């Protein structure tokens, strides 16, 4: 086996780094969180619509970060990272959604007076 040690800096995952991409990700995330902050600080929306708005904005912030910071795309070097991420998402949704549903329906059926 010939050992021609390639330069680690030529690795495709090193080549992914992009100052412009990271700057875009930074500004976009900060702007989205600033928007949520403004909506809540000024009480511009009712509680229900406020919750919908900040949840949607958080989702957009996360999507922006997966694209600009984590480089999650279907390119040759990143596709398994991306697949792992998208297969984890349903697990997270099930964990959160089902647990909250279970406790919510428990609260509705059982009166737990004095519990804190």
């Amino acid at each position, binding site marked *: *086996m010939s050992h021609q*040690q390639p330069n*680690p*800096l030529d*690795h*495709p*995952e*090193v*080549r992914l*780094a*992009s*100052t412009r*991409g*990271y*700057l875009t*990700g*930074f500004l976009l*995330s*900060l702007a989205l*969180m*600033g928007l*949520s*902050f403004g909506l*809540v*600080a000024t009480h511009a929306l009712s*509680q229900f619509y*406020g*919750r919908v708005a*900040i*949840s949607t*904005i*958080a989702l957009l*912030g*996360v999507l922006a*970060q*997966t694209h600009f*910071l*984590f480089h999650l795309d279907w390119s040759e*070097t990143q596709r*398994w*990272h991306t697949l*792992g*991420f998208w297969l*984890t998402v349903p*697990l*997270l949704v099930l*964990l*959160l959604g089902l*647990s*909250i549903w279970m*406790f919510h329906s428990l609260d509705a059926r059982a009166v737990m007076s004095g*519990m*804190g």
Partner: protein
Amino acid sequence: MSSNEAETEDAGSIVLWNDAHPGPDMISTRTLGFWLYMLTDAMLFASIFTAYAILWHNNAGGPGAEQVVHLVPAFVETALVFASVFAFGIAMAALKRGRQGSVVRWIGVAFLLGAGFLGMEIHEFAALAQQGIVPERSGFLSSYYTLVLTHGLHMLFGLLWMAVMVAQVLRQGFTEGVVYRLLNLRIFWHFQALIWVFIFTFVYLQGKL
């Protein structure tokens, strides 16, 4: 190199099934493994978020989220985390160009911004504890402390990791080992910003809604 004749091969030199296959290289294998580990860390955070979502109304007559969270400091913390992540990104762009001094400097900037975040967080929790707002006061406070400080602990370990990587970059240069560890630290550090989006939204903003 044939591995099928080795019957008494020691464990350290065993190669996987087909070593002639032009498969993932050492750097790719390790970043993928670490990324899957970070996804299990996401499961940990999802569990704590679940506990918080269930418990956050149970303040047992004590202070609720509205009294405990403060929006302006939380937004400054948000800016610090994002800026630190951005500084680490610039360090990775410098790595691409092979500039050692620049990599070390920008990791230093990321470290200082991250330390600023951690300082604010410690100050915030010390002030709460001083007012008797401690985790054992209520279900809300237990889950609030657990959730926010688990993220804080991740930030602390990220800072330690940065200090180690600066030393390794200076002593070893950009070897294969140092490069994959820098890539993994990027994943780890950027992941903290991702988690913070949820903490800022569903703990801080939600608390004031």
